[in-house]
Structures are given as structure tokens and as C-alpha cells.
């Protein structure tokens, strides 16, 4: 007797009935057998996915309009994810050392460009993405202002957003130093020279931030730690509050 092998769709069906599959994909997942395009399964699809459930199950219809949000907040978050991923890749090939006579950081930058597989491309993504993120966060702030979305009950979330904007600037600025080329060191020198004019604490401020009087190897290490760990950590904390408050304050603002 000849045994008919199961068709691919039968294999798929059987796979999706296994306990393991069902334990991974929660009810309502479109990857589960028997997903139906009903209101119930649509709701479950949102609430049973860790990423999607940042969103409520339903939103006001006007929130879909591209010209209301321009997707700017979501794209800023996406850029943050992209920068995290590309940044982790770059960390494998970069040492924040700039001792006199042998600037390892700069040498690593050159080897990322020439020797690392896809290194140049990933660095480009990281750099252009970073500039784009500063841009998109700023535009997001403007959008929120023009739609009046900072009005009660969303006052506090606006303040969190301002903090996030400055953290974004801080992340971009600390990252600017890391290539340790002429562009980096002098842009940072110009940028931080302003801090030297702050009243009362100018000297302390410089020493804490630069690890010395001028931008040097100590600065590189400090800004590296700020860039790859400290600031992202703080940013993620505020980002969580930001997303959480959007839903607690009643979802998307408006309509106008």
C-alpha cells in the first residue's frame, strides 16, 4: 500500500495545532490556526502581542489619518530601535581609546570602514539614522504642539517628551565624538565650550563632563559610556512612561 505524503498545507495545519506552537502564539494571533477576521480576533491580535499591545485595541478613527500624526512619534521610536541594533553591531569593532601616539578609536573607525563586513554600511545607517532621529523628534514635538495634544490631561506627557528630546540631543552629541576625527573633536570642543560659561559651576562642569580641561582621551571614554549605556538606559525609562501615559491619558488626542 502506498502512503500518500501530507501536502505542505496539511503539515502547516498540523504544526499549528501542536502544543509548542500554541504556547508561543497566543489566541488571536494571525499565526494560529483558525484566525478569523472578526472583531474578537482583531482585538486579541493586538492585546496578545508584546509589541502591538503598546497600542489600545481600538483607536479613534481620525488617528489613522496620515496628516494628523505623520507617524512621527512611531518613526522616532523605530529609529531608536534601528540605532540600538546598528549601534550594538558597531560596538563589536570599536574601542574608545585615544591615547597619545595611538588613537585606537580612530584606527577602529578605519577598520570598520574597510575591513569589517558591511561595516561601512552599518555605520552609515547609524549616522544618518541618528541625524534623522533628531529631526523626526523635533518635528514630532511641532506636530504635538499644532494639534494641541499637550493640553489636559496630557501636560505631563509633554514634559516627558521635552526630556526625551533633550536626551535625544544628548545621545546624538555624545555619539558625535566617538569617531575621534577632526570633525568630532572640534565640533564637541565648540559645543562644550559654551558650558564653560555657566555661572558658578563652569570648572566643575567641564571636569565632570570632559574629564579634564579640554576634550581628550578621558572625554572619549566618558562620552562612550554615556552614549552606549547611560543615556539609552535613561531614555528607555522615559520612553516607557511616555508610551504608558499616552494610553492612560485616553489614547490619541483630538480630533481637532
Amino acid at each position, binding site marked *: 500500500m502506498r502512503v500518500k505524503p501530507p501536502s505542505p498545507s496539511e503539515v502547516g495545519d498540523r504544526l499549528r495545532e501542536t502544543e509548542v506552537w500554541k504556547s508561543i502564539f497566543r489566541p488571536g494571533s494571525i499565526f494560529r490556526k483558525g484566525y478569523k477576521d472578526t472583531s474578537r480576533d*482583531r*482585538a486579541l*491580535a*493586538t492585546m496578545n502581542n508584546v509589541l*502591538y499591545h503598546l*497600542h*489600545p485595541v481600538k*483607536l*479613534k*478613527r481620525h488617528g*489613522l489619518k496620515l496628516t494628523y500624526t505623520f*507617524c512621527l512619534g*512611531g*518613526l522616532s521610536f*523605530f*529609529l531608536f530601535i*534601528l540605532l540600538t541594533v546598528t549601534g550594538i553591531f558597531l560596538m563589536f569593532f570599536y574601542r574608545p581609546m*585615544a591615547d597619545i601616539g595611538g*588613537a585606537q578609536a580612530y584606527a577602529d573607525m578605519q577598520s570598520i*570602514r574597510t575591513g569589517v563586513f558591511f561595516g*561601512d*554600511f552599518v*555605520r*552609515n*545607517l547609524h*549616522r*544618518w539614522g541618528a*541625524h*534623522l532621529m*533628531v529631526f523626526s523628534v*523635533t518635528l514630532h*514635538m*511641532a506636530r504635538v504642539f*499644532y494639534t*494641541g*495634544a*499637550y*493640553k489636559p490631561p*496630557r*501636560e505631563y506627557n*509633554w*514634559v516627558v517628551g*521635552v*526630556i526625551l*528630546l533633550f536626551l535625544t540631543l544628548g545621545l*546624538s552629541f555624545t555619539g*558625535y565624538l566617538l*569617531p*575621534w*576625527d*577632526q*570633525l568630532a*573633536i*572640534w*565640533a564637541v570642543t*565648540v559645543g562644550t565650550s*559654551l558650558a564653560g*560659561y555657566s555661572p558658578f559651576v563652569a570648572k566643575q562642569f567641564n571636569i565632570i563632563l570632559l574629564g579634564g580641561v*579640554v*576634550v581628550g582621551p578621558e572625554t572619549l571614554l566618558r562620552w562612550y559610556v554615556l552614549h552606549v549605556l547611560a543615556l539609552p538606559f535613561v531614555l528607555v525609562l522615559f520612553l516607557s512612561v511616555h508610551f504608558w501615559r499616552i494610553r492612560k491619558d485616553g489614547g490619541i488626542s483630538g480630533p481637532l
Partner: protein
Amino acid sequence: MAREDTPLDQEVFDRVLKEQTDAGTDKRVAEGRARSAAVRAYKAAHPEESEAAAPAAAAAGDGDGQAAAQAPAAAAPAAAAPAGAAAAVVAAPASAPTRTAPLPTGNIPTPKKGAPDKHRLLALVPPEGIQRVEREQGDRVNVWPHLLIEEFVAMFVLSAGLVIFATFVNAPLRELANPNLTPNPSKAPWYFLGLQELLRYFHPVVAGISIPTFILIGLAAVPFVDRNPSTRPGDRKIAITMFTLLFMFGATLTIIGSFFRGPGYNWIWPWAQGVFFEL
């Protein structure tokens, strides 16, 4: 009224239970189905009792549960209903306003023997005391698929643009840092060029400390300064004008600092002397 006290038709119960068990139904489910069928059969056979059941249950709720349960149908005088209602109202605070909602009738659970009397007050909260939370349903759509698909498209468009751009345009990498050789001009990153431009006009304390601090605090204070509750653009002319002016002011300064400043940070025309700007 306790479940065990509900009168039911034992014959129907046994028959349905056997049917369900034979059909392979789970024991507990089969029992439940048999019970409900039996109760319905009993009620159909004794219509006069089911009429009296409601007042009897109300009476059971307000006082001597045991007595009421024992005599569910026996007499069940018509007066039982007002009597039960009166007892319930007495249990509520004397000052309670006249209630318009109908009193709860049947199926108030009988309190357990020896349970403190106070517990029964929980069932007698006047309607005025209940906070009713009502949310306007409005015109809402499901996030999946409507919003999520839109977000995916936006994400892919952005990714595609960025990948193409990163493939063809290399990020700058100049020669090794040299603290003894200042490039001319030396500029801050583009988002600080507005401030650097201000340095041309103001003392560094003003341009580098006062104005950034003012911007930071001013931005954070926006919702607490602008107390106008309306979000309609027509009602917010002052706020929108002020924000637009400040935003344009910042953008103009940044553009000037980026493209119109050359060696020595002196004014240039980018189409004549070239662009001194790096990202």
C-alpha cells in the same frame, strides 16, 4: 436560595443525565444540563409556585433565610412582596433618599448561618451612591489591522529610504583628531548651530546658558502657561503664531549657521563660496 433547595423534577434529571453521560459529555457539564432541564420541567408542571418564587426569594434575602427556604410555596401570600421590600428598606440608612429603581427581587443569596448581619447592607447601596463610569464609544476602529498596517508601511518606507541613502552616501570621517590644529571654520553639530549663530550676537553667557535654559524650561512649561482648553486652530491663534515664530526663528538661525557661515565663521553665500557644513 441555595441550589439544593431548588425544587426539580427528579425523573427528568435522571433521564437527561443519562443521555448526556451516554453522549460522552463531561460529568460536571452533564449534571448541570440535567439540573437545568429538571428545574425547567418542574416549573412548567407547577406554574403557581414559580409565581410565588420571587417574593419568597426576596423574603429569604432580608431575614430568616431558613424559614423562607423551607416554605417557598406553601402559602406565599401576596403580601409577602411588600413585606419583604419594607424589610429591605429598613436595613438601609434611614436618611437614604427615596429610591426609584426597583428592589432586587429573586435570587439574592441566602447568608450563611452565623454570618455578621452587616454584610447584607452591601446589597443595599442606593443607586445615587454608585459611581457610574461611562465612556463615549465614539467612532473607533481596530488597531489591528488598520493602524498597524499603516505603521508597517511607514516603517518600511523609512527603512528603504535610509538603506538606499546609506548605500550611496558615506558618513564623513576626516583625518585623526589633532588638538593643536583647529579646522576653519569649526562648527558644532547642526542642531547646535542655532546657538552657535546666537554667539555672534550675544555674550556667551546669554547665548550659551540663558537662552538654552529658557528654551528648555519654556518648552516644558508650555502646557501650564497655555491654559486655553480648545484644540481648534481657530481658537489658538496666539499660541500657534508664537510657536511658529519661535520655531522659524530657530530654523533660520540653524540654516544660517549651517550654510551661510564660512571660514572664520564669517558670512558667505553658499552658491558663491561653497558650503562649509558637515553632518
